[in-house]
């Protein structure tokens, strides 16, 4: 019979892994959702939106459970604060992915054809930053030596997203085919919200960098 503290640790390891899987899944569903919207596949988009809500709720539940158990069982006393902060911040990234899709659904922005590829590319860069963030957090738990590599990649994809954000915004405001200011503003809002996901991922990666340094013997 294993000692109680081994059982509790095993339980939490499973929940943390499940939470990170859900974060990954959310970003992929988000990416698919944007593509479906841009392709005008309404039914599939709606189904995708329901799916991201379900996954985001599950991630919230896991995050709350992990937080409760870490505090209740008083595990990892010297790293607990950092881990809770990381998981909470990562949950914000998930929340934002869902929010953007919800706004797409509610506001139905008109995205001209010549901007669709750039929108898709911006989404891809944001999702890549989340992907590297998740890998970085897994490394924080399992293999500290790899954390900096993933942090570096998150910075790279965030930087790419920033450049695309600016490029897209300039195209929107210089395009002769988009005449209304409200339309330009509306498009800029969605560009910013998609790029924000990579900004949030970068902010979490910075917290992770500090947490990794603190995790020395």
């Amino acid at each position, binding site marked *: 019979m294993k000692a109680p*503290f*081994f059982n509790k640790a095993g339980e939490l390891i499973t929940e943390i892994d499940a939470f990170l899987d859900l974060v990954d899944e959310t970003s992929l569903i988000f990416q698919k959702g944007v593509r479906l919207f841009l392709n005008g596949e309404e039914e599939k988009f709606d189904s995708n939106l329901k799916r991201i809500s379900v996954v985001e709720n599950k991630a919230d539940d896991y995050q709350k459970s992990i937080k409760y158990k870490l505090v209740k069982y*008083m595990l*990892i006393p*010297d790293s607990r604060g950092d881990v809770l902060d990381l998981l909470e911040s990562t949950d914000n990234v998930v929340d934002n992915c869902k929010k953007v899709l919800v706004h797409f659904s509610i506001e139905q922005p008109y995205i001209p054809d010549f901007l669709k590829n750039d929108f898709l590319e911006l989404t891809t860069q944001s999702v890549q930053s989340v992907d590297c963030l998740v890998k970085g957090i897994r490394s924080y738990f399992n*293999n500290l030596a790899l954390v900096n590599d993933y942090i570096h990649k998150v910075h790279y994809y965030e930087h790419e997203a920033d450049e695309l954000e600016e490029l897209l915004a300039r195209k929107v405001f210089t395009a002769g085919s988009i005449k209304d200011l409200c339309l330009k503003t509306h498009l800029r809002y969605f560009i910013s919200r998609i790029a924000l996901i990579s900004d949030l991922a970068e902010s979490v990666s910075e917290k992770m960098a500090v947490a990794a340094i603190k995790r020395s*013997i």
Partner: protein
Amino acid sequence: MLFYISSGLFLGWSLGANDAANLFGTAVGARMVKFSTAAIVASLFVIIGAVVSGSGASETLNELGEITTMAGAFIVALAAAFTVFWMTKLGLPVSTSQAIVGGIIGWNIFAGLQTNPQVVTKIVGTWVLCPLLSAFFSIIYYMVVIRIIGNSKIHLLKLDSYTRFGLIIAGAFGAYSLGANNIANVMGVFTQLSPFQMFNAGGLFTLNSTQQLFLWGGIAIAAGIFTYSKKVMMTVGKSIFKISPVGALIAILSSSTVLFLFASVSLKTWLVAHNLPSFPLVPVSSSQALVGAVLGLGLAKGGRNINFKNVGNIALGWVITPVTAALFSYIALFFMQNVFLQTVVG
């Protein structure tokens, strides 16, 4: 008889109350181990260590000064206990081991007996060696642990579980070593006067006179652990250990190893039999061993943020504690002989 050994039992109680924090302070303070678990493990292993391995360090104290009357032994233990109490009140560094040595020397002076300078040199040399050796072991253990953790890629939560388990094991080893090494402080002065007869537990095991004395001393230490050490663990443990739980595990293991080296008769016998250098069996300070271990850990991590004031405090203790205890011992012996008309020198 109980009255005369009461000073030793009080010394044992204060040892349990204070020194258990060195073993389980971090674990209990950080709520990685429950106090009840720590108290039971520490008490059990301190008693076992005292009974099984307490004789070695005790013999060295007898070489320093063989107290010939119960009243004399009572006063020497009381003087040591009072020195520890008074210096603790003043916030000065104090070691029970150093106090009892001072007390015995005070009895030698009062009795007009020569104190063997070679024995004194051996004892003082061990006090100096103790924190240094502890620092050395700390560096070695740190390098091993770093390599194990780095290569095995253990999950943070699994590492936490292993650390908790390790802290209990290290604490048990530390308690055993504390009992083996420091029971001499508590009951060493009474060993030549022990009134107990050989005890046979129905053929299962036997306890000689000295072992029974050490059993009483061990029980007094355990009483100190249960009744007073929680408060000390929660405060002192937290303040000393501003290091990670794994770091604390390394520090406790290192200091326990040193205490064991300076107490184990069987280890010394084995080393001598194999023509290897052995260690003198001398009671040493568990707190100073721990300070040495923490300093060693700091050095292993690059030498930053080392509190060298602790080193100065240790060195100060080597001088102040035995001198104060010798003075108290001499004065108290005078009163015991001339005011209470008890025979303190046989």
